[in-house]
């Protein structure tokens, strides 16, 4: 995988509705506080705007898919627009895999948002299951700076 610097690619508008420099807005979901801090820092260093959620339910609420059925179209609200969801696999309650499926089953534009799954365990069947259900990428924990750089390159290539 090409792990060269992708910072120049950030100049390209990520979303055709916006012009010029556009920060990637990432929603990072993890029940572990330390992992949330780490992923947030990694993403911020990589010039992303970050919103964190401590579980899948909170994440869904943020995306406008909460229990109250408030189908706020999160994508039309500039502040909320999420370009990427990165989620831990193993979480109490709803897993990252279940969150992935909920996002991909959406009828709105939300289903186009790339979802990346992270896990501390390297289980091929788990990885394949996630990719088969539409996950953009699977990332092994613990995360390093080079992982986020690879992620951005991968996302940029997919958009072009």
């Amino acid at each position: 995988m090409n792990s060269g610097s992708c910072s120049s690619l950030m100049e390209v508008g990520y979303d055709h509705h916006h012009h010029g420099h556009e920060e990637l807005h990432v929603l990072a979901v993890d029940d572990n506080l330390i992992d949330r801090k780490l992923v947030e820092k990694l993403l911020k260093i990589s010039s992303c705007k970050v919103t964190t959620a401590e579980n899948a339910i909170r994440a869904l609420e943020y995306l406008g898919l909460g229990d109250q059925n408030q189908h706020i179209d999160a994508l039309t609200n500039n502040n909320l627009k999420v370009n990427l969801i990165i989620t831990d696999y193993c979480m109490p309650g709803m897993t990252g895999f279940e969150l992935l499926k909920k996002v991909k089953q959406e009828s709105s534009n939300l289903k186009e948002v790339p979802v990346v799954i992270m896990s501390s365990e390297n289980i091929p069947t788990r990885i394949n299951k996630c990719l088969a259900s539409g996950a953009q990428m699977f990332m092994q924990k613990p995360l390093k700076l080079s992982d986020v750089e690879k992620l951005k390159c991968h996302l940029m290539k997919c958009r072009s």
Partner: protein
Amino acid sequence: MNNVVAQLQRQFHDYLVSLYQQGFLDNQFSELRKLQDDGTPDFVAEVVSLFFEDCSKLINTMSRSLERPENVDFKQVDSGVHQLKGSSSSVGARRVKNVCISFKECCDVQNREGCIRCLQQVDYEYKMLKTKLQDLFNLEQQILQAGGTIPQVDIN
């Protein structure tokens, strides 16, 4: 003045290398250090501080779950070990992480005695690491106060 800084930097370097060599820390800690910048000079100290708080809390809850032999909540213990293993792995706390691996095995077979031993070991290891890192951060502060910069430390 320069001599003082150079000496402190040497001390810092040697101490950090020894922590890696003795297996207290692994490569992930150096990855964490890479994330620290001028804008967030306390990033590593903050994250490890959260980690140690987390250790303390999790150890307490797991201890309560293991207390009564006739009524051990292994599910709760497993959840605690999972959290601890994840956090220790993410900050590079190698010894703590390794104890968690054994701890999980004891939990999987519902070995209460084994779990208690592992719990005691985890408690020992995190407190040991906390002391070591405190010494490291103190050295950092001394370097900065003497007008020096924190050395990059490469580990193989």
